[in-house]
């Protein structure tokens, strides 16, 4: 048993309650804000000695001075007159602690007078009610970090039932930017989840949206960690390795040639797949890209008509010049042109109840999508997508949207999450649980501003996702600026170093001034954790993720420079077949247009054939076999002039 740390005190002016108590300690005690302590009561209740666990939330110190002026006088008004004093004044360290747990729980009484001890590892387990989910055989604990105080190093576990579902779910993390806390914490937690997610709960994968910089671009590459981090990994039972299975997805740049990601170095392309969607994929989420001002009820009706009657069908109409089969934006534009031409010929204002102005407007808006999202949306209908239906257990799927326009980011986010939800509902995603990580949540689900499709979707995940196994891990700098239903539904909340202005907002009113001060000065690698099992916020340390940091990755694996079409296509194809050469590619494509080459590449990347050479070449017409020019036949000689020809000269 550890030595006595302090003693509980209570006065009429500062009484103890069932939820709060006070204790004093020696001046050199290792107690600080966030320290977990145990109180051993003196008197048995119902034959049982009560034990109370608490966490220090406030500290006070004072001396026997009645007025600061007395100290001034004692020093003769000279602050440096230390030599005058040979005795230090009597001084107190008084702490206020919030109760974490009473044992026994009933009867719930004010905290009794008693002795105070530093909580050891087993005390921490009981205090935070982790004993309920760390039982052998029914263990659902996911280490989030290590609680460290006064020589106690205790791993802190979150309950998987309350982190991934179904009891509660979702996680939200707040903190100022630039301290590598938010992203690092999520990367570490994903490693921890992949290691400790209980087998009986099934499989789990993660989908991460890389929204800025190279943060998530090197999750499969080893990073530098020090001995202290290794100690934390060991304590938490996690191997300090990078993620074993990571798949990257990124759309092309607007040139359609190179991938729009910082992870474009040839050495890392083996698990990078292009993200390309066609008309069908985009039209389903048209409302993401078309705002309410654009799409009124009439336009909405026309879009529905197109989706139901035109898209992927053979469309015939007496007014049109020819039958249409619309599978791409190019086909759709041809269809629109035919419709408008027909109306002009008839000199009519409406077609199938749709006014010509509405038709022109919808054509304009839809055609515009392929321009605004160029690189993501293919005119030709080619599609390269996440492997919905064959998601793998313990795999991270990173979608790099950092270099995209806001519209394209919204479109990707909306479609991917919706597809995940659809597949999880049908139980055919390939895994039973998916963690979706979204950074900059205040941008996607702001607390104010217009209602957007993305925000509605995030609210839907936050409120109903846990039943499906769709879990939202979100991060932002200012929690107060995020829609409160999104953060409110996050069962677990993490806080890194916080901005003072943010801490002054009403959402943090429940925290004591000392906790706020600690939050405002948290070191890198420290977090405050709120979790349904913890009745008070807990401070933990977590290790640096064992993956390469973004800026290290960028310097070690510089992004590929812009290259010619042939070189770019070759680089993509060589991932599938390293034996391909530039000469071969140029030979095969010598008569093809750029669009044809890109279409062939997209098709090969999508289908991943065994024989890449053959599959790619099959897209091009065979070049005419060159033949050696033969000597032309000599013209027939002129007949000889008759000797009697009077005109023959």
């Amino acid at each position: 048993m550890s030595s006595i740390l302090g003693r509980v005190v209570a006065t009429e002016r500062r009484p103890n309650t069932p939820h709060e108590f006070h204790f004093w300690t020696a001046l050199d005690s290792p107690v600080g804000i966030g320290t977990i302590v145990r109180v051993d009561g003196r008197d048995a209740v119902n034959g049982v000695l009560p034990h109370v666990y608490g966490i220090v939330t406030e500290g006070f110190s004072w001396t026997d001075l009645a007025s600061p002026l007395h100290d001034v006088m004692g020093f003769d008004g000279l602050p440096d007159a230390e030599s005058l004093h040979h005795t230090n004044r009597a001084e107190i360290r008084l702490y206020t602690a919030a109760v974490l747990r009473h044992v026994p729980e009933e009867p719930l009484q004010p905290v009794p007078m008693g002795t105070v001890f530093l909580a050891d590892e087993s005390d921490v387990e009981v205090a935070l009610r982790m004993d309920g989910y760390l039982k052998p055989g029914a263990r659902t604990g996911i280490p989030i970090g290590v609680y460290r105080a006064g020589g106690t190093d205790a791993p802190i576990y979150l309950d998987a039932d309350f982190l991934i579902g179904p009891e509660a779910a979702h996680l939200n993390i707040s903190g100022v930017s630039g301290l590598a806390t938010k992203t690092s914490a999520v990367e570490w937690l994903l490693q921890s989840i992949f290691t400790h997610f209980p087998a009986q709960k099934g499989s789990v994968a993660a989908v991460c949206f890389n929204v800025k910089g190279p943060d998530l671009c090197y999750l499969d590459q080893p990073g530098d960690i020090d001995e202290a981090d290794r100690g934390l990994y060991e304590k938490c039972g996690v191997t300090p390795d990078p993620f074993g299975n990571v798949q990257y997805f990124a759309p092309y740049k607007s040139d359609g040639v190179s991938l729009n990601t910082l992870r474009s170095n040839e050495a890392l392309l083996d698990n990078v797949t292009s993200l390309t969607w066609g008309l069908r994929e985009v039209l389903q989420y048209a409302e993401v890209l078309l705002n309410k001002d654009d799409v009124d009820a009439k336009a909405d009706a026309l879009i529905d008509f197109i989706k139901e009657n035109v898209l992927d069908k053979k469309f015939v109409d007496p007014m049109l010049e020819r039958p249409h089969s619309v599978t791409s934006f190019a086909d759709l534009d041809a269809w629109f042109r035919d419709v408008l031409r027909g109306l002009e010929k008839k000199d009519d204002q409406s077609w199938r109840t749709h006014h010509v102005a509405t038709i022109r407007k919808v054509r304009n808006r839809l055609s515009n999508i392929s321009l605004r999202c160029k690189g993501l949306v293919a005119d030709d209908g080619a599609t390269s997508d996440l492997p919905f239906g064959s998601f793998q257990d313990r795999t991270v799927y990173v979608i790099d949207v950092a270099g995209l326009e806001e519209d394209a980011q919204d479109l990707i986010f909306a479609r991917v999450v919706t597809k995940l939800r659809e597949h999880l509902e049908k139980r055919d995603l390939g895994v039973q649980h998916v963690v979706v990580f979204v950074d900059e949540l205040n941008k996607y689900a702001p607390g104010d501003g217009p209602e957007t499709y993305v925000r509605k979707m995030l609210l839907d995940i936050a409120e109903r996702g846990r039943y499906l196994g769709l879990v939202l891990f979100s991060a932002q700098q200012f929690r107060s600026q995020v829609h409160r239903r999104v953060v409110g539904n996050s069962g677990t909340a993490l806080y890194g170093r916080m901005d003072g202005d943010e801490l002054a907002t009403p959402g943090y009113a429940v925290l004591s001034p000392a906790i706020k001060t600690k939050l405002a000065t948290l070191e890198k690698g420290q977090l405050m954790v709120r979790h349904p099992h913890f009745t008070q916020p807990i401070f933990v340390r977590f290790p640096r993720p064992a993956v390469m940091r973004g800026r290290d990755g960028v310097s070690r694996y510089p992004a590929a420079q812009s290259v010619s079409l042939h070189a770019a296509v070759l680089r993509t194809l060589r991932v599938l077949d390293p034996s391909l050469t530039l000469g071969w590619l140029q030979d095969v494509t010598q008569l093809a247009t750029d669009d044809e080459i890109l279409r062939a590449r997209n098709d090969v990347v999508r289908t991943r054939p065994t024989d890449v050479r053959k599959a790619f070449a099959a897209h091009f017409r065979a070049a005419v076999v060159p033949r050696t020019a033969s000597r032309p036949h000599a013209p027939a000689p002129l007949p000889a002039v008759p000797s009697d020809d009077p005109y023959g000269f």
Partner: protein
Amino acid sequence: MDVRTVRRQLAALLPEARPTGEGEGTLELLAASSVDAPRLISATVLEGSGPLKARRVFGGPEPAFRAFLDGTQRSQVAAHLHGIPIVVGTAAAVIRDRRNRRMHTWSPPLVETRLYAPRDLVGARAWESLSALSRGQLVDTTDREHEAGAHPFTLKDAAYHGVQAHREDLERRLAERWCTVENDRLFIDGGISGSEAVAVSSCTVGVVKSHRTLYAEGPALAVVLGLGHRERSSVFVINEKASRRTKVASWYLRLRDPSGRDPMWGLVRVEIAHPGPEEKHAIGDRADEVSRWILAEASPLSLPDARWDKMVYGIRDCEEFLRAVAG
């Protein structure tokens, strides 16, 4: 055994006793208004030749005390039995040891509580009950010498002085224990002449803050009252044979600047062991040395205690400690 407990138990043992109310003041508060009459006593100067003089204490303060000794007392009327006060008196003493500028308790403090009642007036049955209640710690306050011995005030005074004597006894016991086991210097609040063992020890210094008795008359009194900051009087001898106290060397010392203040402001009287014949010539140097030790304790201030001009912080710490453990 505290006043409340005594009240409760008295109610059971002696139903005729009338307990006092919660707001009853302590006898120490009452005694403050009826203290001994001021006295002037002429003392023999030990230092140099001639009358008592003011002497400057040269040199900076030198911290030399390792520990501080003080005692407290608290006495309160618990009940009246047929108008006769039954007093509960608690005396306590402690030595606080200074280590690395922080104060710690040296050996357990002495805290004792006694009951005070006049045996002749309360009757045999009540005396037996009180004796049982106090577990033998019952003190007879019967005053057979005065005509007004049955006056409740006389009985209260007797109880108060009984508690005071008890406190002095505890202080003496602790001081003697210190002198037995330690060699370092001990600052004692009050005189040291009550115990011979303490009075002759070279490690004890007594510092008296109250001046109801001044050991100076005539011009010597003017010298004492006119002492400036960091000045002391000549060393003189205190030899009160009537009270059977041990002879000690003493002098007055001004701890703080008295400008614009009462003549007693910051004035203390120091007692040390009387020097032997071979040490007598150096008594002045010894007084200067001890004075420097005491001046070093003038800071930190003992505020908010009202006696902060004379009280050193170590003694205040003793009092605060005893207030916490003995009430």
